[in-house]
């Protein structure tokens, strides 16, 4: 018996709990909507959460995560980083996976003495967290660089229109 087999076996329960935990940061009416509507176009938030959590989970069970992992994380964080949540709450879903796995598998971990496996899996989650922070900052920086570029470009255009800027002409 190893932890990864258990993680595969209990995948459905763990993913369900993980999604519930993520959705608990929303009001109940919204959480219900995000969870229940399966259409990816009329419920982009809920579906991104549901599908991407599963993809992230599958990646964590691989020996080596693929290059796709940042993309799956990005899908969730790009939304959460705008939803007026504190950074810690935005990324809480990454923290909470440890808790959810522990709560789901603690009996088996204790019974089969799988602490070392669990420790290694926890380390993977820590790495996931690091990646999540990077992506969160990229999203926030994107917003602010857009604002800065907009202001810069507006000022430049005004100066240009007013004839205060003369570009170098070709010889």
């Amino acid at each position, binding site marked *: 018996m190893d932890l990864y087999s258990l993680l595969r076996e209990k995948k459905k329960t763990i993913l369900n709990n993980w999604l519930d935990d993520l959705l608990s*940061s*929303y009001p*109940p009416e919204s959480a219900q*909507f995000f969870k229940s*509507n399966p259409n*990816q176009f009329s419920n982009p*938030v809920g579906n991104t959460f549901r599908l991407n959590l599963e993809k992230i989970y599958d990646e964590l069970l691989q020996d080596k995560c693929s290059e796709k992992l940042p993309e799956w994380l990005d899908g969730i964080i790009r939304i959460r980083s*705008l939803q007026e949540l504190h950074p810690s709450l935005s990324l809480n879903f990454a923290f909470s996976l440890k808790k959810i796995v522990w709560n789901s598998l603690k009996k088996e971990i204790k019974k089969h003495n799988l602490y070392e496996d669990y420790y290694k899996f926890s380390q993977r989650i820590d790495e996931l967290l690091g990646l999540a922070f990077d992506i969160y900052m990229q999203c926030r920086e994107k917003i602010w660089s857009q604002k800065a570029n907009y202001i810069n470009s507006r000022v430049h255009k005004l100066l240009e229109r007013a004839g205060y800027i003369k570009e170098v002409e070709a010889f």
Partner: protein
Amino acid sequence: MALPSARELFSKISHRMPKREWMDIPVEIKPGRYCYPANPKSLEYVGMPYARQWSPLDEDWKLPENWMEIIRTGMRDRLDRFRTFKIFMDICVRCGACADKCHFFIGTGDPKNMPVLRAELLRSIYRGEFTTAGKILGRFAGARKLTEEVIKEWWYYFYQCTECRRCSLFCPYGIDQAELTIIGRELTNLLGLNTDWIATPVANCYRTGNHLGIQPHAFKEMIEFFCDDIEEVTGIRPEPQFNKKGADILFITPSGDVFADPGTYTCMGYLMLFHYLKEEYGLDVTWSTYASEGGNFGFFTSHEMMKRLNAKMYMEAKRLGVKWILGGECGHMWRVIHQYMDTMNGPADFLEEPVNPITGTKFENAKSTKMVHITEFTADLIKHGKLKLDKSRNDNIILTYHDSCNPSRGMGLLEEPRYIIKHVCNHFYEMPENTIREQTFCCGSGAGLNAGEIEELRFLGGLPRANAVKHVHDKFGVNMLACICAIDRAVFPPLMDYWVPGVDVTGIHELVGNALILPGEKERETNLRGEPLPGKEG
């Protein structure tokens, strides 16, 4: 006293939201979620009441002393005047069909952005103030007291609605949430509670003719600047006419087309089309530096202000003595024209029923308003083979089309833009069915919400639209999003950059301008943006 341990502190943190009734959840005004209040000078200029400096973050919003009476009288007056308002207050059964149709709810997850609940903010006061059941049974009958908190909540949430009417499409009773938002905003306006992104454009439109306050000489200069660019690309310089008395057609477009990229390229497309039609068929079109704004920010203020700002279209048409009016690619401008103008400022019996002088087509739908949408006009020209087009010039573009809310849901303009697209572009892919045509998702920035200070809220409102664009971007390699609304053209570039990098934004007539073969033009090397045409990259 010893500090609590980290474990104790963390144990008290709950990420679960409290389960309370919506009436028990006080409104929390958050920076980044509201537009800045109006500049008092702008309100004073158009005679709106209680102009003052105030801050949404302050406890005291400096409401007039008799604010309750103002609201009661304002509601009573509107219940008497607007049958729709009265009906919409009474008939909702809270079935929830609209609840998950609002792009702001879908994106933010804030329950008060569910259309049913946003309407309930107003309806609960209606019940408490105007119905016997509500007065006697109070909360049991869904009523609540009118308090300053309610006013704050109204102001906060009625400016988080873009009046796109997607929810109305799904309502079994046809309740039009946009009308409720309009009334809600009218009521807050009675107390001097407005937003600057609406009030200052209103004052500018009223005084100068367009929402940025571009003066006539500058308006003309900007258009001539586009003519320079067109000459550079094509070797042909259009000679647009301004304020020409006796012209056949008056052309009015949103001023965004004149000053904001990428709308400016759409404007070049108009200029090229008019030049072509003048050279080939002698069409006589004039621009106006007075009616220099198609957009109507009065629509976001009150019915009266909408009427006042709209009036200049007919006034200018009358002054110039044109036969009929042609309108550019704009969103809410068309909702006002299609659904209100004839009643408010008509009948325009001094104008002729619009007929395309080149094809002879009668625009039956514009028989009364005397105003034709440019995509109908251009589609008609194409249908009759009156335009020489080289669609391969747009071969670098893999296009999808966003139905802008007001032209699609507001006036049923669904086929004409697509007809043009198919004749000027070889690579066109539709987004999923439940995100286009009548079911189109709003850009998230209409109805006066395109303010920089709420950009993040707008990005969430625009998420359902961007999500559908991402789908066709991933599946078909779509790299361009077309639309027929100036607000769309202004807000989509940053929205796409955040959600779907690699997708740019265009108006339909930019594509037309690129494909149109002008008489006597030189061999083009670039498109209107100065980018190499397909095959000319080297």
